[in-house]
């Protein structure tokens, strides 16, 4: 068996811990005949660069990290560097983390060492891990359960790769194949498709079991040049990849990185991979890996605030917040419910949408580019210029979520209004009682004072206009 020198990369956002670790391991390793090379990185971006350069035998990562958390990082490693041993070293320990470790092919899971003895144990365990044969490098191997679980159990842990493999290859994976085999078949299938994509005819498909991020990652890994055209209900666009690097992207309204983020965030839809032809411009110079990490982070952030409004979260929160905030939380839930059944509700609102009664304080809403007013019951009371009210409701949800974070951490009370200023853009979200107004102007400044005056002089927005 070929002997490979051990190289360990520790990834943790706690720099003091990393330095302590490096120092302690340095002392231990200095006396050891097979001393490994130790690398440290305080974020995933730097870690990926280091991995590319040094190709470590083992990556030991923390879980709770900014930008990209440990599990996202592990998933990325599994895809790009399946031969690297993955180890988790974290301050947290729970059955959920154990389960996620298992799901992400983690070979060892340690708690952060508190004593020199604990550090020595980890050191010995890591050395042993490097000596273990890695004939099947992607197979998850957990300290507590040294043998890979039987096939049906493995598939229960993460059934998706199995399903995806079946879908893409169009052939059944034998039951005796393990989870890792399913993943390998999936990778092979996608690689074959990618190779086929080099033929000018290209290939296309429906984004159902596989999402755009995964598809782009595979294209990046293949180092090929191609154009990925994506279309979904809300938007469509193209991502240009040259030698595995994203060099340009465009959607209906965006060009460059923002277009990539929008396209990677599309749900469902269809894709088509065609032969590469140079775009008119190269709008992206940022490293592709960085863009993919940022996109993953943005999607996580969106998921987090959507999950925040689940019924369970609402129930537990309502019991411990003040009366004022309670009203808002209830409203947020109504808005959330509204978002779920948005099509029906919006249709209903639009059908009955008369500009609300005009008071003396009002001004012509038609002068603003976009206005949406949500009433107490969460329904759209008035809307003007908004192409996609569902997305605007989503945005209002997000701002409410952020203002709640402010309230919880800084005790600043309830949100009155939130202003957004861009190069050619002004927007305001104002809240009065239980009504919410979102107004956006793109070419001219918003009449903020008039808007706020109208809001403040009236008990609720729907009376104001």
């Amino acid at each position, binding site marked *: 068996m070929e002997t490979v020198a051990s190289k360990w990369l520790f990834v943790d956002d706690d720099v003091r811990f990393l330095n302590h670790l490096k120092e302690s391991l340095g002392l231990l390793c200095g006396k050891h005949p097979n001393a490994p090379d130790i690398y440290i990185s305080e974020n995933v971006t730097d870690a990926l660069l280091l991995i590319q350069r040094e190709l470590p035998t083992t990556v030991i990562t923390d879980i*709770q990290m900014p930008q990209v958390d440990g599990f996202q990082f592990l998933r990325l490693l599994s895809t790009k560097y399946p031969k690297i041993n993955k180890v988790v070293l974290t301050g947290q320990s729970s059955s959920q983390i154990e389960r996620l470790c298992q799901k992400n092919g983690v070979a060892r899971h340690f708690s952060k060492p508190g004593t020199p003895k604990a550090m020595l144990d980890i050191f010995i365990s890591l050395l042993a891990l490097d000596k273990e044969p890695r004939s099947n490098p992607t197979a998850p191997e957990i300290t507590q359960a040294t043998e890979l679980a039987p096939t049906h159990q493995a598939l229960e842990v993460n059934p998706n790769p199995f399903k995806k493999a079946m879908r893409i290859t169009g052939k059944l994976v034998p039951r005796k194949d393990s989870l890792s085999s399913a993943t390998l078949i999936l990778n092979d299938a996608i690689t074959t498709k990618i190779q086929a994509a080099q033929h000018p005819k290209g290939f296309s498909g429906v984004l159902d079991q596989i999402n755009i991020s995964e598809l782009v990652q595979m294209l990046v890994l293949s180092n090929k040049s191609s154009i990925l055209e994506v279309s979904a209900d809300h938007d469509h666009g193209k991502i240009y990849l040259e030698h595995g690097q994203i060099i340009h992207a465009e959607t209906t309204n965006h060009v460059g990185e923002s277009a990539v983020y929008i396209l990677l965030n599309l749900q469902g839809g269809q894709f088509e991979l065609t032969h590469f032809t140079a775009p008119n411009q190269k709008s992206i110079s940022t490293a592709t890996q960085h863009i993919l990490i940022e996109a993953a982070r943005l999607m996580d952030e969106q998921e987090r605030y959507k999950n925040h409004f689940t019924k369970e979260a609402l129930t537990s929160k309502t019991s411990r917040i003040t009366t004022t905030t309670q009203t808002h939380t209830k409203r947020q839930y109504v808005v959330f419910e509204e978002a779920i059944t948005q099509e029906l509700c919006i249709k209903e609102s639009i059908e009955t949408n008369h500009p609300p009664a005009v008071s003396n304080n009002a001004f012509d809403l038609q002068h603003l580019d976009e206005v949406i007013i949500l009433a107490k019951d969460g329904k759209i009371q008035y809307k003007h210029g908004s192409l996609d009210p569902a*997305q605007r409701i989503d*945005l209002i949800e997000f701002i409410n979520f952020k203002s709640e*974070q402010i309230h919880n951490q800084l005790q600043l009370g309830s949100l009155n209004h939130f202003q957004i*200023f861009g190069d050619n853009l002004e927007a305001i979200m104002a809240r009065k009682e239980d009504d919410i107004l979102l107004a956006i102007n793109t070419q001219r400044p918003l009449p903020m004072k008039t808007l706020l005056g109208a809001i403040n002089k009236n008990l609720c927005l729907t009376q104001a206009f």
Partner: protein
Amino acid sequence: MPDPSLLVLKILAAMSPFLSNPHILEIAFCSENRETWRQKRGEAAQKLTTPDNIWRKLNDTFSVLKLHKLESKQLVWTHDHGQIILIKKDGKGACGILSQNIIEETELQKLQKNCTDILDVTK
């Protein structure tokens, strides 16, 4: 390339005169790689190491707004008992100001301009 931590400290140092305003309780800076520092009135600058700190969470708003096709450079949250202002410059990061009162419009504009200048000039 300048040391990101050094840039953060330089920007915080340039912002520190804001703390002489009695309404302003805290200033902060969140760099492009999301390294976050804050300085409260009468205290030294402090690095925030936990990822769930409020400044980092608020800084994420820029990215989410971008996804909603509302690319922005300045954000102002006005709550019942205070205000938070965030001013961003691509390639540098975002300055944050926490005020215990609602800042008047003219003063707010002045603060926003000063922050923009600091972000433009500091290297």
